[in-house]
């Protein structure tokens, strides 16, 4: 289906892609090809799950994401999946954080994922979740550096599933 503002979307901020791309041409990701669908190789209850997030959530004390750079920050942070939420903080400017400031799970559902693991819905959580910021104005550089680096980390970790959440 071709991208279109006439889709039956009820999104709260319609036309977001067009608005941003008109203002900053080339800054928004647009792909022509579909990624081949990778199949689940085992039941969810046996899968090791990694959570990826553009939320800018990071462990307190880790190098803060550079939210002031005009082009963005193309690095990632590892967030231990057993982190207490009190040990985490957000460094990201481009989305409303008023909900996350009161309950981080609205954008980084680390406690819900641990519950699903404890109940056996999923097999395990990867030792690290991976976070970065969504404000990166060079999609090609994202693909060449950040996306590749995170993908290599996931392969090295031997994860079975990646839950990839924008913010």
């Amino acid at each position, binding site marked *: *289906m071709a991208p279109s*503002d006439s889709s039956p979307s009820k999104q709260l901020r319609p036309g977001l892609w067009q608005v941003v791309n008109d203002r900053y041409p080339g800054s928004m990701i647009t792909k022509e090809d579909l990624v081949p669908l990778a199949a689940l190789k085992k039941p969810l209850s046996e899968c090791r799950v990694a959570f990826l997030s553009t939320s800018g959530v990071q462990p307190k004390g880790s190098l803060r994401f550079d939210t002031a750079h005009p082009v963005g920050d193309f690095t990632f942070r590892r967030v231990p999946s057993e982190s207490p939420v009190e040990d985490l903080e957000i460094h990201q400017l481009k989305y409303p*954080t008023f909900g996350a400031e009161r309950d981080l799970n*609205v954008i980084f*559902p680390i406690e*819900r994922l641990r519950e*699903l693991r404890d109940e056996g819905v999923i097999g395990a959580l990867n030792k690290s979740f991976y976070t970065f910021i969504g404000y990166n104005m060079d999609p090609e550089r994202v693909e060449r550096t950040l996306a590749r680096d995170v993908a290599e980390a996931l392969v090295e970790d031997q994860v079975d*599933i*990646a839950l990839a959440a924008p913010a």
Partner: protein
Amino acid sequence: MGIPSVSPSVARDVTEHAKPPRAVFLPFMMGHHFGVPFHKQLQRRVLMEMLAELESATESGSIRDLDLSWAQARREGKEIEARLASAGG
């Protein structure tokens, strides 16, 4: 080949352009892809819908619309917070 992945989206048009292999769409506010504070059931539901999509999607680029409303999520969230405040007080 590859690692199966799935994404939540609150911006359907952005997702249509980026073409992740699997996505679920929620008409929620940016920064609130899993709902509202302290609404554990809703946060869990979004995750469960994502996991279900991993099992059920048959075509890359699919976006499944979830039957959720932001107004209802906020209303339920306020009720939960009122109960929490009452229990705490």
